[in-house]
């Protein structure tokens, strides 16, 4: 049950994220730029092996996912590490706010950034690369990519608590690139050797990319992927809430 306390913080966190124009601008533009770069390496009509999906459409979904992941993971972990150092989290722990309220507020403020990210990638893909899917697919894709990004927002909060100061950026980078590449956001994981595919299958990023791909191919997301993402969400969010309570870092 989400208390009224948590709503007050969620509202303010969202407001200040929207107010941070530079962060918003780069977070929203970045995935579209990467999409244009990476999709230019393939012809518009080339298809992914064993599917009738074009590379352009594949990259649209994976880069929208990747962009959302970037915004929530990088944005959250660094800002939280900074807030801890400044002592704001200490002050917040002296209020009646439950720890899950804090974690949810951070996830919510991240979600505000990811939606425009996703929409802009779609617009660019449709306008520049002539990607076409059914109307329901556009909405379903935006919905699942948006919802899936919350898992990584929770991971970002947890990382912000695991590492402080100088360590947070390298740690975020390692996790971010590791998960992106191994999860198949950059290259379809079908191109990996079998042993790596076996590992990739259980990564949250793989499940995340699969959600979008299933919809792109006209189906609905696999129950296994949804279950994997839900499990990761609970682990990350629970871990973040636990770390928030345990945190003893002083300014």
């Amino acid at each position, binding site marked *: 049950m989400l208390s009224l306390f948590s709503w*007050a913080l969620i509202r*303010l966190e969202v407001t200040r994220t929207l107010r941070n124009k530079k962060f918003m601008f780069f977070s929203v533009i970045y995935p579209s730029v990467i999409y244009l770069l990476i999709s230019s390496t393939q012809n518009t009509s080339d298809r992914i092996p064993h599917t009738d999906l074009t590379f352009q459409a594949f990259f649209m979904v994976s880069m929208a996912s990747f962009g959302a992941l970037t915004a929530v993971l990088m944005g959250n972990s660094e800002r939280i590490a900074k807030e801890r150092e*400044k002592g*704001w989290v200490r002050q917040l722990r*002296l209020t*009646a706010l*439950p720890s899950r309220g804090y974690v949810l507020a951070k996830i919510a403020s991240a979600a505000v950034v990811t939606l425009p990210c996703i929409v802009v990638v779609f617009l660019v893909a449709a306008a520049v690369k002539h990607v076409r899917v059914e109307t329901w697919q556009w909405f379903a894709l935006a919905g699942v990519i948006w919802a899936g990004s919350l898992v990584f927002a929770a991971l970002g909060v947890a990382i912000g608590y695991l590492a402080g100061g100088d360590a947070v950026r390298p740690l975020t980078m390692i996790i971010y690139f590791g998960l992106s590449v191994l999860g198949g956001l950059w290259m379809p994981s079908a191109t990996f050797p079998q042993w790596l595919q076996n590992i990739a299958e259980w990564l949250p990023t793989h499940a995340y990319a699969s959600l979008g791909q299933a919809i792109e191919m006209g189906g609905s997301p696999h129950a296994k992927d949804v279950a994997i993402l839900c499990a990761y969400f609970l682990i990350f969010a629970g871990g973040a809430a636990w770390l928030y309570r345990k945190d003893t870092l002083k*300014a």
Partner: protein
Amino acid sequence: MTTTAAEATGAKTTAVRFEQVSKAYGAVRAVDGLTLDLHPGETVALLGPNGAGKSSTLDLLLGLRTADSGTVRVFGTTPQNAVAAGRVGAMLQTGGLMEDVTVKELVGLACALHPRPHPVVEVLSRAGIGRIADRMVNKLSGGQEQRVRFALATAGANDLIVLDEPTTGMDVTARQAFWATMREQADQGRTVLFATHYLEEADAIADRVLVLHKGRLLADGTAAEIKAKAGARRISFELAGPVDEAALRGLPFLAAIDITGNRVRIQSHDADATVHAVYGLGLHPRALEVAGLGLEQAFVAITEAEEARTAC
């Protein structure tokens, strides 16, 4: 049954209870077997040199850290529960502020997060930040930030207010205004506990002064009692005729004596008896002054005596 009744009364009459509380960071014992009770409505100053364990004590009291041993109770429950129930407001030295929001938004958040909030406008004006309500938090001066922290600590009807060096960065006028509002809080029956470096603040404001040293409680009493505990009063006078140094050094209850020309300065454990003995010597002191030690001197005397004792 008797125990529960006693516990129930205990919970009612004590705001804060530390029982044999210890906390160590590696080899350093920050808090060492601390036992103390704070009662509702008291204004208590926590004094101690740097590293005496003041901040650690406040952290334990607020539930930001957990004690290695012993128990900390706030209004008869754990610090975490007392905080969650909105009974405790705190202004921390290390408490940062949220950025990219206005003063009003931040104070509004503190009010919204409090189970028994005061109206935002009232909190702002009491903290003296009504005029800067629309300013961004990251654009404030040090003194203004302190007032915002104070507003956060008083956003609701707390029963205990904890302040860690609250007037750091404030000028004299702001400091006076701050203590005036703090006294209002105390007059409403709230318990106020503050750590400070400014001993004159402790002297002027606190009903009770706690002196911490190396994590232990060295002294606990009113400012006057602490001064008395330091054990000395100052006596000074001038002598008209020739000075008989040997006779003066033989005076009873002397702690220290300094004779410069015909001016005599004495620290005495019993000023009345010493002055009486001066007249007994047949001397006629002029410009006689007898004064207590200031809290600052008393504090230095107490902690130095402890240093000397532990060094042996």
